[in-house]
């Protein structure tokens, strides 16, 4: 039996894993996007609580960021994956189902990635809000803008502009964290490479190509982020 060459392995021929790896890469992007979106929501809520909340809200947000930034992401994924299954099974028993109901891996992964990145996003948003000039807010009040209009027209656009570099960093972290979701069995890029490595006995080739695909995704999205940063700060004088 002849060994297929490296190019055959990653191509779309009979021995090729190309389409499977591409599908895995799409899944990775999907998990990262879903996790990032959830993280944005948590980050916005957390920043809101830290900036404008009462002592209780601030305490909750402070605990949230301290805890989620101090424990490993893998542990959080285990919590959502296994803990979610436990909760769902308990609910199932209430409604007469029996046995163990497993929590969908994609949902557990996206939630776990979202909650951990939300803690980082909180700090990004909070720092960006602090960078908004007090004079701009005063001007908005002086123009008679009600709070919501002020938020929509002044605070949100300016905060997002200042937050862009930090948000880019969080995206890169989320993308790499999505590899951990492979332990829940979701067939994303790393899981697909594991399957390929197992069935062909060529782990190096598969993990190498996986690493290259991750590198490509992060480089491309990094370039995209840099471009958008340039776009959104056109009106800012530099230097």
């Amino acid at each position, binding site marked *: 039996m002849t060994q297929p060459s490296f190019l055959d392995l990653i191509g779309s021929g009979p021995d090729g894993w190309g389409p499977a790896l591409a599908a895995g890469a799409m899944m990775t992007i999907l998990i990262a996007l879903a996790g990032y979106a959830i993280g944005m929501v948590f980050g916005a809520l957390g920043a809101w609580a830290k900036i404008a909340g009462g002592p209780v809200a601030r305490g909750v947000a402070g605990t949230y960021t301290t805890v989620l930034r101090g*424990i490993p992401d*893998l542990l959080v994924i285990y919590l959502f994956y296994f803990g979610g299954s436990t909760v769902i099974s308990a609910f199932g028993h209430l409604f007469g189902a029996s046995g163990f109901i497993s929590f969908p891996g994609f949902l557990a992964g996206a939630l776990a990635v979202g909650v951990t990145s939300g803690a980082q996003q909180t700090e990004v948003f909070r720092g960006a809000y602090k960078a908004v000039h007090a004079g701009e807010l005063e001007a908005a009040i002086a123009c008679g803008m009600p709070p919501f209009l002020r938020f929509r027209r002044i605070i949100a656009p300016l905060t997002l502009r200042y937050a862009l570099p930090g948000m880019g960093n969080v995206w890169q972290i989320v993308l790499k964290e999505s590899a951990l979701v492979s332990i829940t069995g979701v067939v994303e890029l*790393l899981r697909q490479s594991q399957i390929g490595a197992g069935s062909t006995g060529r782990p190096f080739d598969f993990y190498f190509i996986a690493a290259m695909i991750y590198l490509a995704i992060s480089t491309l999205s990094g370039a995209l982020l840099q471009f958008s940063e340039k776009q959104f700060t056109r009106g800012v004088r530099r230097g």
Partner: protein
Amino acid sequence: MDFLFLYETFVTLISAIPTTLQLAATSVALGTVLALGLALCRLSGIAPLDWFARAYIFIFRGTPLLVQIFLIYYGLSQFRGVRRSMFWFILRDPYWCAIIALMLCTAAYSAEIIRGGLLSVPHGQVEAGRACGMSRFLVFRRIVMPLAIRQSLPAYSNEIISMVKATSLASIITIMEVTGVAAKLISETYRAIEVFIVAGAIYLAINFLLTRIVVLTEYRLSPHLRQAPSLQPVAAGEMK
């Protein structure tokens, strides 16, 4: 809440703390040495060295750590040359593979931190050292390095903490550190939430202690930034 179970989990997990700390300490120590080399390559002004360091940092920062671990632990065994080499006894061992992967990864991140620290040393300090007749190496050892260490300490503490968190990935290649033991407990008892609370508290405690130590070190290293201890004004008659 079942406190007996929490206590038993705590006792079980405590036995795994040394492994976690060993992994983190070894990889951070080795990674720092490598990082210093990379940072010096970046600043050397020699194009091939600079490009090598740039490429290294780009690759290791752009790929997930888990992929790097798999590449070293599972990937290298694909080659017969590696399996027959004298290094096989190391590369066969998941513990050392985890340390190598963590070390290579942290070196990429720390190199940029150290480079920033080295660049932040004011040029006048170097000139002053040279003017005192110090050799280039002596200037580096006595002036540049200490100042750079002090400057990059805050960023470095972040990196150390993320390394403590990253050691949890070693559990995926069968090493029984805190997360590994926690995962085993979860799959044995199906009580993910309780185990998570205990394991999370352990990591939080480790990271809290580490931040305190770094803050204390920073405080010790920067007496010039502190206000001089003010002398209490004493009336003439109260002198003892």
